[in-house]
């Protein structure tokens, strides 16, 4: 009734190419952004900003990166955390060794370094497909983790391999409070998400999807496989790299390579699958789900389990987490984004569904 486009009334190319053709979507998005940029930093406390919203946003960015590679280009990767690590260490080294560079440029360069590494590890994808490729990307995961720990240069020869970036300064203003960091992260994530949204509906995105759906057919209609796949690896790694840099700078403050281990890669993959493969919105929904679920489980555990021992509790959490993932896959294998889509379809017909 309220939410619908009542026919094709587009009279200009501009309207035809709008990201959100339905006005309500647009208003809702602007409202959400305004809420996130203005209301949240004013209203939320440091725990919410620092421990929930910042990691949620950063992991959304990483999930977005993996979603570009897996969801849009169809290349399964289990090494996304390694590219986050590359981004984090690269940003740290740029900040340390070239202090005259502005912080945002550090992040950008870190993303580019991660992209370059991503291209190197993406080369096998030209020959290897499916689960073989997934296992092959584990090579990236383990090799990068090892290299960052082994070679002291990356961590400026710190004894434990831990890097501690200096405080973030933008145009002379030092970001100290959680709200500052939150705004920085939110800004970067918003811009990159908009970029991704546009990228996947451009010629590049269509080429990715063609390769995903059937690479031989894509090649036959003249899509350059080499170029397309490697570009997907590069863009994906760029997003993961920036996410990694933010993880080190804005969230943790001190990290070692263990913060980017295989479990992190799985976590990001979970977000993509739960949220929805091949969906920008899905990356955010999935990240919200995966970040919030353990917190909720923990809360529930404390609520009910005054008498239960801690190790029993953590095992119960593990079981519930696994079971919920299986449950979600059974109930909605296409992810949360599909649920949202179905809701929208229903809204279009409401209140007169035939």
């Amino acid at each position: 009734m309220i939410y619908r486009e009542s026919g094709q009334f587009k009279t200009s190319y501009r309207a035809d190419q709008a990201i959100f053709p339905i006005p309500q979507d647009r208003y809702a998005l602007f409202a959400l952004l305004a809420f996130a940029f203005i209301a949240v930093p004013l209203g939320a406390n440091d725990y919410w900003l620092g421990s929930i919203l910042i990691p949620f946003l950063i992991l959304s960015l990483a999930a977005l990166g993996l979603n570009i590679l897996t969801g849009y280009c169809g290349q399964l990767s289990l090494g996304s955390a390694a590219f986050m690590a590359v981004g984090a260490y690269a940003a740290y080294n740029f900040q340390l060794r070239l202090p005259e560079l502005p912080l945002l440029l550090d992040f950008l360069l870190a993303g580019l370094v991660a992209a370059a590494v991503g291209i190197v590890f993406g080369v096998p994808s030209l020959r290897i497909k499916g689960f073989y490729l997934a296992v092959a990307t584990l090579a990236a995961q383990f090799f990068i983790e090892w290299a960052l720990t082994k070679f002291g240069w990356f961590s400026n020869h710190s004894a434990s391999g831990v890097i501690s970036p200096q405080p973030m300064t933008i145009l002379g203003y030092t970001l100290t409070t959680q709200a500052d960091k939150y705004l920085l992260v939110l800004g970067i994530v918003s811009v990159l998400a908009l970029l991704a949204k546009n990228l996947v509906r451009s010629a590049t995105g269509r080429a990715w999807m063609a390769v995903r759906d059937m690479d031989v057919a894509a090649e036959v209609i003249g899509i350059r496989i080499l170029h397309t796949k490697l570009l997907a690896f590069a863009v994906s790694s760029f997003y993961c790299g920036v996410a990694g840099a933010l993880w080190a700078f804005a969230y943790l403050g001190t990290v070692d390579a263990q913060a980017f281990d295989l479990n992190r890669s799985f976590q990001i993959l979970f977000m993509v699958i739960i949220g929805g493969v091949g969906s920008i919105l899905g990356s955010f929904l999935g990240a919200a789900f995966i970040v919030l679920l353990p917190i909720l489980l923990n809360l529930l555990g404390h609520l009910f389990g005054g008498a239960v021992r801690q190790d029993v509790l953590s095992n119960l959490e593990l079981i519930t987490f696994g079971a919920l993932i299986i449950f979600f896959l059974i109930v909605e294998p296409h992810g949360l984004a599909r649920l949202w889509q179905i809701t929208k379809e229903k809204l279009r017909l409401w209140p007169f569904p035939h």
Partner: protein
Amino acid sequence: MELIFFFEVLVGGLLAGIMYSLVALGFVLIYKASGVFNFAQGAMVFFAALAFVSFQSWGWPFPLALLAALATMIVVALATERVVLRKLVNQPPITLFMATIGLTFVLEGLAQLIFGTDVHRLELGIPDDPLEIQGMLISTFDLIAAGVAALLVVALGVFFQYTRVGRALRAVADDHQAALSIGIPLQHIWAIVWAVAGFVALVAGLLWGARLGVQFALTLVALKALPVLILGGFTSVPGAIVGGLIIGASEKLAEVYVGPFVGGGIENWFAYVLALGFLLVRPEGLFGERHIDRV
């Protein structure tokens, strides 16, 4: 002397590789029959070993504990088929893969919830003394483990080749649709295959448990088996064995001869890079089924 040392490392590596093969075998069985890349195999190894040790610590004799552990694994397999796989028929492989990661969490949590989180020692009564052959020192335990693995492979080969269920398994592995159409009950077959994989996990769990102690780190053994798997091919039992031998031997040799030059600790990734190199030449692994893309 130098040469003897080389062979000592080589044989040690080959024997260690057999241990990887044992885990990889479980992956292959399930992938062949159902096309599911079962990430939970490592958790199953852990679960089986922990169940066995716990039964033993309750004072049960060895054969009874073994049977009980086997029964536990069969229950796990049946439950998995009923609760997870049956609901996910016809879903894309990646969904099934994610479901098995979920299953990993459930199994790890369950195992520790039921049997506790302590590290257990596992005594199989196999001596672990070095045995001297032609001047080389070789671990007796490794030799016996290799023997067990060989036995297992032969037994599986006979089972697949000569029994009715085994033939049905191979039929399903070849073509789900065709197997269904001649009346092979797919779901029973999947349950059986998961049970067999549970049995393989039990054997692997016992051997690895005796080697490392039964502890959470056993689940990581699966990560060691993955390069073996891609090197040999997902669908080939002999591939799992040959892959294990290659990975084991070259890993140990690299650790000894290359490791010192780059600062050591390369065993975490070397196998993967090696497997990656192989894959570039043969994208379906050494013995994997070649697939032909048709538009």
